[in-house]
């Protein structure tokens, strides 16, 4: 009896100690990302890149909570509400999909929380809906598609067929491509988000007389399309943003993806010190090559850490100013924020190649230097 009482007391003491330790954490960070279902590989890479950055910093005064949004806007909103209301987080991050970001970010920033985007950066939040507490570390949605558009123009394509899912990032995608391509189109199609069969679209491409194809289909959607397209026997140049050919998809795509050109603001062979260190540390820890989502996650962690060195999120003005300085070594090389808190950075074209047996992306050229975003003038803050 005495022993059980002692045990209970000891465990109670341990719990209390754990609670005090948690209470001592000065900064709380909530990571909401997609860890199950069709989009899981994107969220897992985001999380792993972010956590790699956090582990390297080894700061025990930062508490991180990670939750799975299942790529569902309603679930993301519930998690965000819980993190803000009961966990009292200071900073939110991690959302992959723009429709989820549109559901979470405006409400979170309105409650005075900081949101650092590891990926989704829809046009609405870069222009009129911009907010001083919202920072897109990755890009503005249109950017990588603009690179593909610029590439299409420079290659002299005159009749591309363009395709994207029907959600905010899909609309940004086609708008971005058209902004830099400027010519005629063989066709423009919106598919369903999460669609897996593209027979109908491929038949349209075949009948359209297109001279090239641009598509934005991240994750499983892209894998399905590329395989079905390769099977349809249509021999046309293929372009896309990095999301259609990211590292986590390439093993499932196989040789069907070889030679494909994609717009990106990061590549594993981008030549700078921070990137080389990131790629080797990521490979060592997770035993696979990092994808572009992992790179954004890692940069986001380092940006946040650089700002935390200078200020506490509780002092919102100082913390905001520290974030804005972007005083960290980005794996993308030169990096700074424009007035709408979206990056100014170089955008490249990559090509899918084989390194031995491993499919990966290599840099081909820089297509747009120091690109900001199309909506920066609409942002008043």
């Amino acid at each position, binding site marked *: 009896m005495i022993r059980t009482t002692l045990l209970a007391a000891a465990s109670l003491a341990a719990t209390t100690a754990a609670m005090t330790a948690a209470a001592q954490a000065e900064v709380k960070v909530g990571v909401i990302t997609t*860890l*199950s*279902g*069709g989009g*899981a*590989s994107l969220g*897992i890479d985001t999380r792993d890149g972010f956590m790699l950055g956090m582990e390297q910093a080894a700061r025990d005064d930062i508490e991180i909570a990670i939750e799975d949004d299942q790529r569902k806007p309603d679930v993301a909103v519930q998690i965000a509400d819980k993190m803000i209301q009961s966990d009292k987080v200071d900073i939110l991050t991690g959302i992959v999909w723009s429709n989820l970001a549109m559901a979470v970010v405006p409400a979170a920033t309105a409650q005075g929380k900081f949101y650092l985007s590891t990926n989704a950066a829809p046009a609405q939040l870069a222009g009129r809906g911009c907010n001083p507490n919202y920072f897109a570390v990755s890009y503005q949605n249109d950017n990588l598609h603009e690179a593909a558009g610029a590439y299409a123009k420079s290659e002299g394509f005159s009749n591309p067929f363009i395709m994207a899912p*029907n959600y905010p990032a899909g*609309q940004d995608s*086609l708008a971005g491509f058209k902004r830099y391509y400027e010519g005629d*189109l063989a066709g*423009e*199609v*919106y*598919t*369903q988000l*999460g669609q*897996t*069969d593209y*027979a*109908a*679209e491929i*038949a*349209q491409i*075949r*009948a359209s007389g297109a001279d090239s194809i641009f598509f934005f289909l991240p*994750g*499983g*959607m892209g*894998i*399905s399309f590329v*395989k*079905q397209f390769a*099977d*349809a*026997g249509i021999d046309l140049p293929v372009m896309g943003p990095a999301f259609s050919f990211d590292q*986590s*998809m390439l*093993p*499932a*795509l*196989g040789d*069907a993806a070889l030679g494909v050109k994609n717009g990106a603001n990061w590549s594993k062979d981008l030549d700078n010190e921070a990137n080389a260190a990131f790629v080797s540390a990521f490979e060592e820890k997770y035993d*696979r090559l990092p994808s572009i989502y992992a790179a954004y996650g890692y940069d986001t962690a380092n940006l946040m850490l650089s700002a935390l060195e200078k200020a506490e999120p509780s002092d919102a003005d100082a913390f905001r100013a520290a974030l804005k300085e972007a005083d960290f070594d980005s794996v993308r090389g030169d990096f700074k924020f424009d007035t709408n808190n979206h990056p100014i950075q170089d955008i490249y074209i990559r090509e899918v190649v084989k390194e031995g047996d491993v499919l990966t992306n290599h840099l081909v050229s820089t297509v747009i230097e120091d690109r900001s975003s199309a909506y920066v003038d609409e942002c008043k803050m």
Partner: protein
Amino acid sequence: MSPILLAEQVLNGLQSGVMLFLMAAGLTLIFGVMGLINLAHGSLYMVGAFAAATVAGLTGSFVLALVTALAGAALAGALMEVVVIRRLYARDHLDQVLATFALILIFSEGTRWAFGSFPLYLDTPDWLSGTVQLPGGITYPAYRLALIGVGLVVGVGLWWLNARTRLGIRIRAGENDREMIAALGVDIGRLYTLVFALGAGLAGLAGALVGAIQSVQVGMGEPVLILAFVVIVIGGIGSIRGALIGALLVGLTGTLGSVLLPELFKLFTDASSAATLGSAFSSMAIYVLMAGVLIWRPTGLFGARS
């Protein structure tokens, strides 16, 4: 739109329809015979695809991969029936839904634990890659044509099984009066396991066949499961013929809707907004179809009249 393109789209609709039929046939059989709502049917589809991807990766043989998918999913189905499902027949539908939903979570996390979260590689075999030239100048992928063939063969096989074999007689008898056939000396427990394994095997086969042209990943079964439920509601719960007609209707409506609706909106607005509007409306098309059928025939096209 040219007649050739339209014909190709009709073939695409048929192809997606017959693959849905493989899923819906098992679902409707299980519901018809045992009165069980099996939400975990999509997990068996995933099991088939993962089994096929593993075997194809190890041996390089696509046929062997399909056989393993069919057998593996049937085995997983039989196990599922013996361990969990058997305890649910006497319970109400809410308990069944809860338990089979739990099975989805267990299968998904189990697969993630065994294979990881990243999509696996499974490709069409060389002898079915590329396209064939059909009469009328239609170029069509050989693999998709083969899928239509497999679906129709399975359809005929199920009809034969149901109408011409002793097992079929027992299945139909089980649908009508399970106490009576048990009293006549048929081992109803074994019959149930057999029917469940058959439905599971068909789902696994569909998963492997479709996995070769889509992405083999955790959670791939759930979107198909929703469509399969739409199919059996349209076709009439428990009817295999209804499942076939319903699957073809859903396949054709989904495909032609996504092609024709944007064309329709182009008559009224510019190309960009027509594409957005068409896409939004075509995602509703099959549910509108379902609602229409249910207003006309509340028990589905071939459902029993009560």
